[in-house]
């Protein structure tokens, strides 16, 4: 796998990162190295093998939809962490466009 300039720019976009030209080259080389090492996985016969995403056999864990005291209190304290402007208990963000 060798990244073209366009492919790596797309990757930066997906990652929400803005890199210098030197860093682009450096990270591209590093990632190409990891992918080259991992290329051996393509030769492993996984016919009929199910993918694992959860190692202890859990699925669809649910609880009743009860609001706890902690959840009631956390809203305003969470807002205090933000270094953005807060207005009417909401974080004000710059224009999208």
């Amino acid at each position, binding site marked *: 796998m060798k990244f073209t300039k366009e492919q790596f720019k797309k*990757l*930066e976009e*997906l*990652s*929400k*990162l*803005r*890199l210098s030209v030197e860093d682009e080259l450096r*990270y591209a080389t*590093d*990632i190409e*190295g*990891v*992918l080259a*090492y*991992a290329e*051996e*996985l*393509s030769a*492993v016969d*996984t016919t009929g*093998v*199910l*993918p*694992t*995403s*959860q*190692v*202890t056999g*859990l699925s669809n*864990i649910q*609880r009743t939809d009860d609001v706890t005291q*902690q959840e009631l209190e*956390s809203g305003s*304290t*969470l807002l*205090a*962490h*933000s*270094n*953005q402007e807060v207005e009417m208990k909401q*974080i004000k*963000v*710059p*224009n*999208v*466009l």
Partner: protein
Amino acid sequence: MISKIKVLRELLDNKKVSILELTQEYIEKAKATQKKTNAFTYIAEHEALEAAASADTQEASSPLHGLPYSLKDIISTKGIPTTASSKMLEGYVPTFDATVAERLKASGAILIGKNNCDEFAMGGSNENSAYGVVKNPHNTSKVPGGSSGGSAAAVADGASVFSIGTDTGGSIRQPAAFCGVVGTKVTYGLVPRHGVMAMASSFDTVGPITSSVYDSAVVLDHIAGQSSHDMTSIKGPLGSYVDAIGKSVDGMTIGVPKEYLELLDESMKTTIMSSLDLLKAKGATIKVVSLPQTKHALSTYYILVPAEASSNMSRYDGLRYGPTVTEPKNLEELYLANRTNGLGDEVKRRILLGSFVLSHGYYDAYYLQAQKVRTLIIQDFANAFKDVDVIAGPVTPSVAFDIGGKKDPMDLYKEDVFTIPASCAGIPGMSIPVSSKGGLPIGLQLLAPQQGEGRLFTVASMLEELIGFSL
């Protein structure tokens, strides 16, 4: 190795020292360790002394009451800065305690500080912190290991009675081996991850780093068990891990993977095998087993973990917490600037790699294939555990390496070759120090099936007694 919990409990219970005096002593030790190793991102002097004075007025309700400890700085602590060793969380003070911090507070243990680590737990040498490299206390030109390097260094240097680290691919076991202390990676879900900043959510575990096997069992007894805040945590009952200490190994079979031995040099192989041979005199059988997927584990891990990490890192944008640029042109500009400025090298590398393997056109070839190979790795261990009770082998290919000694990311990743397979399978593992070379410790790794921590404590405590390691 000496149980610090037993020694200090005796001193405290017999009023030879007060909790306040003990805490003051450990704060001074933490400051001294800090100058030598940079093991802490925050020493909670004021908070600890206040808690200690209060603890002196209370009856000891647990063996941990009054004992000074530290937490890896990706574990949220109410009112105490938690940075994940990243600029992205500079100045962040959580409004809640992680479950593990809550449980240790309830035990009466005294939090004296937060340990430096690789940024967002990404690394194997503690060279990736935004707050400086951590140094190995046995030789400060060497790494302590990572990502829980600060935790292991603090315990090894006597600045913490115990620390809590996290292990996603070896980040408790490897620094424990490099620093000559005991590190326990638990079964996935045994210790709740609520409040622990996520790196790879299907791999992350939380566990103790201690100076002895007994201490590890005592701490684990206090932190393990289901939490309603972590829906992946294991339902009880669990039983006491301390009860497994000192039990007989007579009749137990210990398997040594031939694939691990093939990767070792002669001196490491001799160290591991001669340590295990001591168990034969106590009635254990040592046999060679095979884990054929070992050669694929590193690739599997370094596809799946960056993928999960890239998703977990997407919450760090400077909106709800962390420093931010002022007067960005628009929201996109704010995200790009905050993330690029705030996140370090290794974090960026893993986000990029993770985003790639999840992206359209590459997902099947990389991520999906790695998930399938993960299933084969799980089957490897299941097959081996049909014939053996515990698997034993090395933790690391060598002793601690030089700070700055590994520039290529793949060289660093390859250091995890022995710890990663167990992480893929979600099984527990322990590193105990058994020997040294050139003044640097060597760890031996024990692995068990899921929820088999009891077997680990039994075999580890026997080995500890037979070897009597100290450095």
